[in-house]
């Protein structure tokens, strides 16, 4: 990997800006046969829950135009097995790992952060606030600034100061900038934009919802324009907060689009299901695209689409790095 593609998410330096998105790279073992995992900017885990969860019954997925609808129900082995079995394997392979956490209450988020604290091999913690909040009749944390902020604060408080905490937001909100501001204010060092968007498909054979979950999350290239918009709007408001752009990245030019909008790195999700070699290919294509545009360092491309915008939106400085607090 050339220096051209080096990037950083705050203090976290990455040799490549192309990561896997949470929940889309399996445990890492499934991708390993296809390419050297060392070529990953980072591997993001499936959101880890406190308890083992089988998730929803099948069908959990439906194909939609240029997209996928999934309602997984947050399946996973639970943090104990994750720490015993999955994380050590990634550490062994020398894979930079971003651990995604999913809680169903603020307390659960705090507990997860606590369990993870000091565990070696955690490059960053991502907080999946697109989780149903049992304390709020199952509404997603990500839809309400205060709820999202509470989840972030719980994880930030429980995590070592040197370890970046990223807030992963969903686009199903009237104003994603407000939610982003609340999360950064609550201590998020960076943002991952975006999670899937709520959609639905009906099986025209059975005349019933195609997914057991009734509605599900829309991902894939269909979603990309929404991801670009969210990254652009949030970067305009928070130009100093690092962003991982996610949503429909399938080619190097897609990655470049998110970077120009303001992302410092991109995560590939659904494209992995279509093309297990997507990450190294996107990286190669991005490298070529930067070279063709004579952009010597990726950092020079971050947010470039904002310049020379006629109208400069109000800018907000990010919070200062927090001092360690007692958890």
């Amino acid at each position: 990997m050339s220096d051209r593609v080096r990037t950083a998410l705050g203090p976290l330096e990455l040799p490549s800006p192309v990561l896997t998105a949470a929940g889309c790279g399996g445990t890492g073992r499934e991708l390993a046969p296809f390419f050297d995992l060392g070529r990953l900017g980072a591997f993001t885990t499936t959101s880890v829950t406190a308890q083992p969860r089988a998730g929803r019954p099948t069908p959990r997925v439906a194909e939609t135009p240029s997209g996928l609808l999934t309602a997984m129900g947050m399946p996973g082995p639970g943090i104990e097995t994750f720490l015993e079995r999955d994380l050590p394997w990634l550490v062994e392979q020398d894979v930079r790992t971003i651990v995604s956490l999913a809680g169903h209450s603020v307390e659960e988020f705090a507990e997860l952060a606590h369990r993870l604290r000091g565990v070696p091999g955690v490059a960053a913690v991502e907080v999946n606030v697109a989780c149903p909040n049992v304390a709020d009749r199952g509404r997603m944390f990500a839809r309400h600034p205060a709820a999202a902020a509470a989840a972030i604060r719980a994880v930030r408080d429980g995590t070592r100061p040197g370890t970046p905490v990223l807030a992963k937001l969903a686009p199903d909100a009237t104003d994603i900038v407000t939610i982003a501001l609340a999360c950064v204010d609550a201590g998020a060092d960076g943002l991952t934009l975006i999670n899937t968007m709520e959609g639905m498909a009906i099986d025209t054979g059975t005349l019933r919802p195609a997914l057991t979950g009734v509605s599900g999350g829309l991902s894939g290239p269909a979603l990309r324009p929404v991801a670009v918009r969210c990254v652009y709007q949030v970067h305009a408001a928070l130009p100093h907060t690092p962003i991982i752009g996610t949503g429909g990245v399938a080619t190097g030019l897609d990655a470049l689009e998110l970077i120009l909008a303001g992302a410092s790195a991109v995560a590939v999700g659904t494209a992995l299901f279509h093309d297990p070699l997507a990450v190294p290919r996107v990286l190669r294509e991005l490298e070529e695209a930067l070279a063709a545009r004579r952009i010597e360092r990726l950092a020079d491309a971050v947010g470039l689409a904002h310049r020379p915008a006629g109208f400069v939106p109000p800018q907000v400085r990010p919070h200062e790095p927090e001092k360690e607090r007692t958890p």
Partner: protein
Amino acid sequence: MSDTPVQTSATVLTVRQVQDYHAMTLVAPAIAERFRPGQFVAAAVGGAHTARLVRRCFGVHEVKSDYGGTVEVVFADTEPGTGWLAGLRSRDQLDLVGPLGRPFRLPRDPVGCVLTGGGPGAASLFALADTLLRRGCKVHFVLAGPSARQVFGSRMAQRVGDTAAIVTEDGSVGEEGTLDDVLPRVLQETGADVVYGCGPTDLLRTITQIAGELGLPSQVSVEEFLQRTGACGTGLCMTCMLPVHGEDGVTRMVRACADGPVLRGDRVRWSDLGTIPFDALGAPRVLSVTEGGSR
């Protein structure tokens, strides 16, 4: 690394009509060389500008060494994805990933094997038969389906197998009847030691049950379940989960693609397919409150 899957651009060699099906032979040396019976390939459909992101999976009917290595798949073109495939012509390119999944476990000794199937899925049995025969096993085919259209390879089975029984509900080919009428008889007559199955889920369940009653092991490929539920074929997406109980008695949700598609029939909880059994590891203790799809 020769047992790991690859992604490759395969060249279409020929597309032939076989009964109501299309048989497509593809030049894909890296896949042919790695392939073991029971594994499958996953094809990207719709071309370079496709809006369809889910690969379509196909069992491999035959592997040959021509042109460095070819694989043949068999399919009906009734649906959009396979309809597109059927429109490909010689010299076109097809993006393939494979071989994927766990193969049929092969007997160490030259024992008697019954290979049971129906629909285009039965195609996989012929690659298996080939390998078993080369190992000196006896191969007995039992092909079943509602009518002739749904039974692939009846003539081929007669040619290749030591014996071959065909049964259709309407008697349009072979005997009139169902698998229940034929399989126990064939198992008894041939004195087979193991049963292999590939086809619709109901068929697999019947195979498992009949084999179980006779105390025989069964190896079945849950292709149909995988097709209805999966999105990647490579074990990444976790959508193709089915309940399987392990030796420790604990039921776990496993992936049909990466932990299968070939599973021990007696391990699959056939009645609970499409559910999370309450006693499965990680099953919800109460129905969780969720707003739309939690991700």
